[in-house]
Protein backbone atom coordinates (compact mmCIF):
# COMPACT_ATOMS: atom_id res chain seq x y z
CA UNK A 1 0.00 0.00 0.00
CA UNK A 2 1.34 3.39 -0.94
CA UNK A 3 0.38 6.33 1.21
CA UNK A 4 0.78 8.79 -1.63
CA UNK A 5 -1.85 7.11 -3.83
CA UNK A 6 -4.36 7.10 -1.01
CA UNK A 7 -3.53 10.69 -0.14
CA UNK A 8 -3.96 12.02 -3.69
CA UNK A 9 -7.23 10.18 -4.26
CA UNK A 10 -8.45 11.37 -0.84
CA UNK A 11 -7.63 14.94 -1.83
CA UNK A 12 -9.48 14.61 -5.16
CA UNK A 13 -12.51 13.12 -3.42
CA UNK A 14 -12.59 15.89 -0.83
CA UNK A 15 -12.27 18.64 -3.45
CA UNK A 16 -15.14 17.15 -5.45
CA UNK A 17 -17.29 16.87 -2.33
CA UNK A 18 -16.63 20.50 -1.44
CA UNK A 19 -17.40 21.71 -4.97
CA UNK A 20 -20.63 19.73 -5.11
CA UNK A 21 -21.86 20.93 -1.71
CA UNK A 22 -20.63 24.49 -2.25
CA UNK A 23 -20.10 25.09 1.49
CA UNK A 24 -17.34 25.09 4.11
CA UNK A 25 -19.55 24.02 7.02
CA UNK A 26 -17.29 21.91 9.31
CA UNK A 27 -19.90 19.18 9.80
CA UNK A 28 -20.44 18.63 6.06
CA UNK A 29 -16.69 18.85 5.42
CA UNK A 30 -15.94 16.19 8.04
CA UNK A 31 -18.54 13.84 6.57
CA UNK A 32 -16.90 14.37 3.17
CA UNK A 33 -13.43 13.77 4.60
CA UNK A 34 -14.56 10.52 6.23
CA UNK A 35 -16.21 9.28 3.04
CA UNK A 36 -13.23 10.19 0.83
CA UNK A 37 -10.82 8.47 3.21
CA UNK A 38 -12.95 5.34 3.28
CA UNK A 39 -13.34 5.23 -0.52
CA UNK A 40 -9.64 5.86 -1.17
CA UNK A 41 -8.70 3.12 1.27
CA UNK A 42 -11.07 0.68 -0.43
CA UNK A 43 -10.30 1.52 -4.06
CA UNK A 44 -6.79 2.95 -4.02
CA UNK A 45 -4.94 0.83 -1.45
CA UNK A 46 -3.35 -1.27 -4.18
CA UNK A 47 -3.50 1.00 -7.22
CA UNK A 48 -0.42 2.77 -8.62
CA UNK A 49 -2.13 5.46 -10.68
CA UNK A 50 -0.67 8.44 -8.87
CA UNK A 51 2.67 7.00 -7.76
CA UNK A 52 4.49 8.72 -10.64
CA UNK A 53 3.00 12.09 -9.78
CA UNK A 54 5.50 14.57 -8.35
CA UNK A 55 4.10 16.91 -5.73
CA UNK A 56 6.93 19.45 -5.83
CA UNK A 57 6.40 23.21 -6.38
CA UNK A 58 8.17 23.02 -9.76
CA UNK A 59 5.79 20.30 -10.94
CA UNK A 60 2.78 22.32 -9.77
CA UNK A 61 4.08 25.42 -11.56
CA UNK A 62 4.51 23.47 -14.78
CA UNK A 63 1.02 22.01 -14.37
CA UNK A 64 -0.31 25.57 -14.41
CA UNK A 65 1.76 26.50 -17.49
CA UNK A 66 0.62 23.28 -19.16
CA UNK A 67 -3.05 24.12 -18.57
CA UNK A 68 -2.59 27.54 -20.21
CA UNK A 69 -0.77 26.04 -23.21
CA UNK A 70 -3.44 23.36 -23.48
CA UNK A 71 -6.36 25.82 -23.45
CA UNK A 72 -4.63 27.95 -26.09
CA UNK A 73 -4.13 24.89 -28.31
CA UNK A 74 -7.74 23.82 -27.76
CA UNK A 75 -9.09 27.16 -28.98
CA UNK A 76 -6.68 27.19 -31.92
CA UNK A 77 -7.75 23.65 -32.82
CA UNK A 78 -11.42 24.59 -32.81
CA UNK A 79 -10.91 27.60 -35.03
CA UNK A 80 -8.83 25.44 -37.38
CA UNK A 81 -11.46 22.70 -37.67
CA UNK A 82 -14.24 25.27 -37.99
CA UNK A 83 -12.36 26.97 -40.83
CA UNK A 84 -11.94 23.66 -42.66
CA UNK A 85 -15.59 22.74 -42.20
CA UNK A 86 -17.03 25.95 -43.61
CA UNK A 87 -14.59 26.22 -46.53
CA UNK A 88 -16.57 24.95 -49.55
CA UNK A 89 -13.67 22.92 -51.02
CA UNK A 90 -13.13 21.03 -47.70
CA UNK A 91 -9.30 21.34 -47.54
CA UNK A 92 -8.20 18.11 -45.83
CA UNK A 93 -5.26 15.75 -46.48
CA UNK A 94 -5.89 13.02 -43.92
CA UNK A 95 -3.51 10.22 -43.03
CA UNK A 96 -2.19 8.16 -40.14
CA UNK A 97 1.35 8.96 -39.03
CA UNK A 98 3.48 7.50 -36.29
CA UNK A 99 5.30 9.54 -33.65
CA UNK A 100 7.62 8.68 -30.76
CA UNK A 101 7.49 10.02 -27.24
CA UNK A 102 10.28 10.35 -24.69
CA UNK A 103 7.91 10.12 -21.73
CA UNK A 104 8.35 7.03 -19.58
CA UNK A 105 5.46 7.20 -17.11
CA UNK A 106 2.06 5.74 -18.01
CA UNK A 107 0.17 8.71 -16.61
CA UNK A 108 2.28 11.15 -18.63
CA UNK A 109 1.68 9.18 -21.82
CA UNK A 110 -2.04 9.08 -21.17
CA UNK A 111 -2.23 12.84 -20.68
CA UNK A 112 -0.07 13.35 -23.78
CA UNK A 113 -2.38 11.15 -25.89
CA UNK A 114 -5.49 12.94 -24.67
CA UNK A 115 -3.94 16.35 -25.27
CA UNK A 116 -3.01 15.34 -28.81
CA UNK A 117 -6.61 14.29 -29.43
CA UNK A 118 -7.86 17.73 -28.41
CA UNK A 119 -5.37 19.78 -30.44
CA UNK A 120 -5.31 20.96 -34.07
CA UNK A 121 -6.28 18.23 -36.49
CA UNK A 122 -4.81 15.27 -34.64
CA UNK A 123 -6.48 12.20 -33.12
CA UNK A 124 -4.66 9.44 -31.26
CA UNK A 125 -5.70 6.06 -32.65
CA UNK A 126 -3.42 3.75 -30.72
CA UNK A 127 -0.44 3.74 -28.41
CA UNK A 128 2.01 0.87 -28.09
CA UNK A 129 5.16 1.34 -26.05
CA UNK A 130 6.66 4.69 -26.96
CA UNK A 131 4.94 4.84 -30.36
CA UNK A 132 1.73 6.75 -30.91
CA UNK A 133 -0.37 6.32 -34.06
CA UNK A 134 -2.07 9.57 -34.93
CA UNK A 135 -4.75 10.37 -37.46
CA UNK A 136 -3.76 13.75 -38.87
CA UNK A 137 -6.35 15.77 -40.76
CA UNK A 138 -3.72 17.73 -42.69
CA UNK A 139 -0.59 15.62 -43.16
CA UNK A 140 2.42 17.92 -43.57
CA UNK A 141 5.14 15.27 -43.33
CA UNK A 142 5.26 11.47 -43.38
CA UNK A 143 8.58 11.29 -41.57
CA UNK A 144 8.33 10.02 -37.97
CA UNK A 145 10.98 12.46 -36.68
CA UNK A 146 9.43 15.57 -38.19
CA UNK A 147 5.91 14.60 -37.21
CA UNK A 148 7.14 14.12 -33.65
CA UNK A 149 8.62 17.63 -33.69
CA UNK A 150 5.36 19.10 -34.97
CA UNK A 151 2.81 17.23 -32.86
CA UNK A 152 4.39 15.99 -29.66
CA UNK A 153 7.14 18.42 -28.63
CA UNK A 154 5.03 21.36 -27.57
CA UNK A 155 3.35 19.27 -24.86
CA UNK A 156 6.18 16.91 -24.07
CA UNK A 157 8.56 19.57 -22.82
CA UNK A 158 6.11 20.52 -20.07
CA UNK A 159 4.96 17.00 -19.24
CA UNK A 160 8.60 15.92 -18.86
CA UNK A 161 8.97 18.42 -16.03
CA UNK A 162 5.79 17.17 -14.34
CA UNK A 163 6.17 13.40 -14.69
CA UNK A 164 9.83 12.92 -15.56
Amino acid at each position, binding site marked *: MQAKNVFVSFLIGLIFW*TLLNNTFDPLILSVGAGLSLLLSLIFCARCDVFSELKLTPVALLYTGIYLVVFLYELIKSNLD*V*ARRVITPSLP*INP*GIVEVKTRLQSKMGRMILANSITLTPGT*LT*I*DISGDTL*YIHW*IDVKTEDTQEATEKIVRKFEKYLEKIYG
Partner: protein
Amino acid sequence: MNILAIIGAFVTLAGSIFLLLGSVGLLRMPDCYNRIQAGTKASTLGTILSFAGILLIMPGWWGKLLILIISVILTNPVSSHVLARASYHKRVPLTKATLVDKYQEEEEYIAVKDQHKEDQNNDQT
Protein backbone atom coordinates in the same frame (compact mmCIF):
# COMPACT_ATOMS: atom_id res chain seq x y z
CA MET B 1 -30.68 42.27 -16.17
CA ASN B 2 -27.11 43.02 -15.28
CA ILE B 3 -24.05 43.23 -17.45
CA LEU B 4 -22.66 39.85 -16.35
CA ALA B 5 -25.77 38.05 -17.60
CA ILE B 6 -25.47 39.72 -20.99
CA ILE B 7 -21.81 38.69 -21.34
CA GLY B 8 -22.80 35.19 -20.24
CA ALA B 9 -25.48 35.04 -22.92
CA PHE B 10 -22.92 35.94 -25.59
CA VAL B 11 -20.43 33.34 -24.33
CA THR B 12 -23.16 30.69 -24.43
CA LEU B 13 -24.02 31.80 -27.96
CA ALA B 14 -20.37 31.39 -29.00
CA GLY B 15 -20.43 27.89 -27.51
CA SER B 16 -23.52 26.94 -29.46
CA ILE B 17 -21.95 28.27 -32.67
CA PHE B 18 -19.01 25.92 -32.13
CA LEU B 19 -21.43 23.04 -31.51
CA LEU B 20 -23.26 23.93 -34.75
CA LEU B 21 -19.98 23.98 -36.71
CA GLY B 22 -19.13 20.59 -35.19
CA SER B 23 -22.40 19.15 -36.47
CA VAL B 24 -21.80 20.63 -39.93
CA GLY B 25 -18.39 18.93 -39.79
CA LEU B 26 -20.04 15.61 -38.98
CA LEU B 27 -22.13 15.93 -42.15
CA ARG B 28 -19.40 17.17 -44.48
CA MET B 29 -16.35 15.07 -43.57
CA PRO B 30 -15.67 12.13 -45.90
CA ASP B 31 -14.92 9.26 -43.50
CA CYS B 32 -15.41 8.06 -39.95
CA TYR B 33 -12.04 9.26 -38.60
CA ASN B 34 -12.36 12.80 -39.91
CA ARG B 35 -15.88 12.94 -38.52
CA ILE B 36 -14.61 11.94 -35.10
CA GLN B 37 -12.03 14.74 -35.35
CA ALA B 38 -14.64 17.38 -36.13
CA GLY B 39 -17.03 16.03 -33.51
CA THR B 40 -14.55 15.84 -30.64
CA LYS B 41 -12.88 19.21 -30.89
CA ALA B 42 -15.91 21.35 -31.60
CA SER B 43 -18.05 19.66 -28.97
CA THR B 44 -15.37 20.04 -26.28
CA LEU B 45 -14.92 23.79 -26.69
CA GLY B 46 -18.63 24.31 -27.38
CA THR B 47 -19.62 22.58 -24.15
CA ILE B 48 -16.95 24.40 -22.13
CA LEU B 49 -18.10 27.77 -23.48
CA SER B 50 -21.75 26.99 -22.80
CA PHE B 51 -20.92 26.09 -19.19
CA ALA B 52 -18.76 29.21 -18.86
CA GLY B 53 -21.71 31.31 -20.06
CA ILE B 54 -24.01 29.69 -17.50
CA LEU B 55 -21.31 30.38 -14.91
CA LEU B 56 -21.48 34.11 -15.69
CA ILE B 57 -25.28 34.13 -15.53
CA MET B 58 -25.53 32.01 -12.36
CA PRO B 59 -22.30 32.56 -10.36
CA GLY B 60 -23.64 30.48 -7.47
CA TRP B 61 -23.34 27.27 -9.48
CA TRP B 62 -19.58 27.54 -10.00
CA GLY B 63 -18.66 24.33 -8.13
CA LYS B 64 -20.91 22.01 -10.12
CA LEU B 65 -20.10 23.72 -13.41
CA LEU B 66 -16.38 23.32 -12.72
CA ILE B 67 -16.89 19.59 -12.15
CA LEU B 68 -18.85 19.34 -15.41
CA ILE B 69 -16.09 21.13 -17.34
CA ILE B 70 -13.37 18.90 -15.86
CA SER B 71 -15.28 15.73 -16.66
CA VAL B 72 -15.90 16.86 -20.25
CA ILE B 73 -12.18 17.59 -20.73
CA LEU B 74 -11.22 14.22 -19.26
CA THR B 75 -13.78 11.96 -20.95
CA ASN B 76 -14.19 13.46 -24.41
CA PRO B 77 -10.73 12.58 -25.82
CA VAL B 78 -10.85 9.09 -24.31
CA SER B 79 -14.19 8.25 -25.92
CA SER B 80 -13.15 9.56 -29.33
CA HIS B 81 -9.86 7.63 -29.15
CA VAL B 82 -11.73 4.41 -28.33
CA LEU B 83 -14.21 5.02 -31.17
CA ALA B 84 -11.39 5.60 -33.66
CA ARG B 85 -9.44 2.55 -32.50
CA ALA B 86 -12.50 0.29 -32.60
CA SER B 87 -13.42 1.50 -36.08
CA TYR B 88 -9.90 0.79 -37.31
CA HIS B 89 -9.92 -2.73 -35.94
CA LYS B 90 -13.37 -3.27 -37.48
CA ARG B 91 -11.67 -2.26 -40.78
CA VAL B 92 -13.85 0.76 -41.45
CA PRO B 93 -12.25 2.08 -44.67
CA LEU B 94 -10.32 5.34 -44.75
CA THR B 95 -11.31 7.91 -47.33
CA LYS B 96 -9.68 7.80 -50.76
CA ALA B 97 -7.96 11.11 -50.09
CA THR B 98 -5.84 9.46 -47.37
CA LEU B 99 -2.14 10.08 -47.99
CA VAL B 100 -0.41 7.67 -45.63
CA ASP B 101 -1.34 4.88 -43.22
CA LYS B 102 1.48 3.90 -40.88
CA TYR B 103 -0.84 2.05 -38.54
CA GLN B 104 -1.52 -0.78 -40.99
CA GLU B 105 1.52 -2.91 -40.08
CA GLU B 106 0.87 -2.63 -36.36
CA GLU B 107 -2.78 -3.54 -36.88
CA GLU B 108 -1.85 -6.63 -38.91
CA TYR B 109 0.62 -7.66 -36.24
CA ILE B 110 -2.07 -7.41 -33.56
CA ALA B 111 -4.52 -9.36 -35.73
CA VAL B 112 -1.96 -12.17 -36.24
CA LYS B 113 -1.23 -12.26 -32.53
CA ASP B 114 -4.94 -12.47 -31.67
CA GLN B 115 -5.42 -15.24 -34.24
CA HIS B 116 -2.49 -17.12 -32.70
CA LYS B 117 -3.99 -16.80 -29.23
CA GLU B 118 -7.37 -18.02 -30.48
CA ASP B 119 -5.73 -21.04 -32.12
CA GLN B 120 -3.95 -21.90 -28.90
CA ASN B 121 -7.20 -21.68 -26.95
CA ASN B 122 -8.90 -23.93 -29.49
CA ASP B 123 -6.09 -26.47 -29.17
CA GLN B 124 -6.45 -26.58 -25.41
CA THR B 125 -10.21 -27.15 -25.39
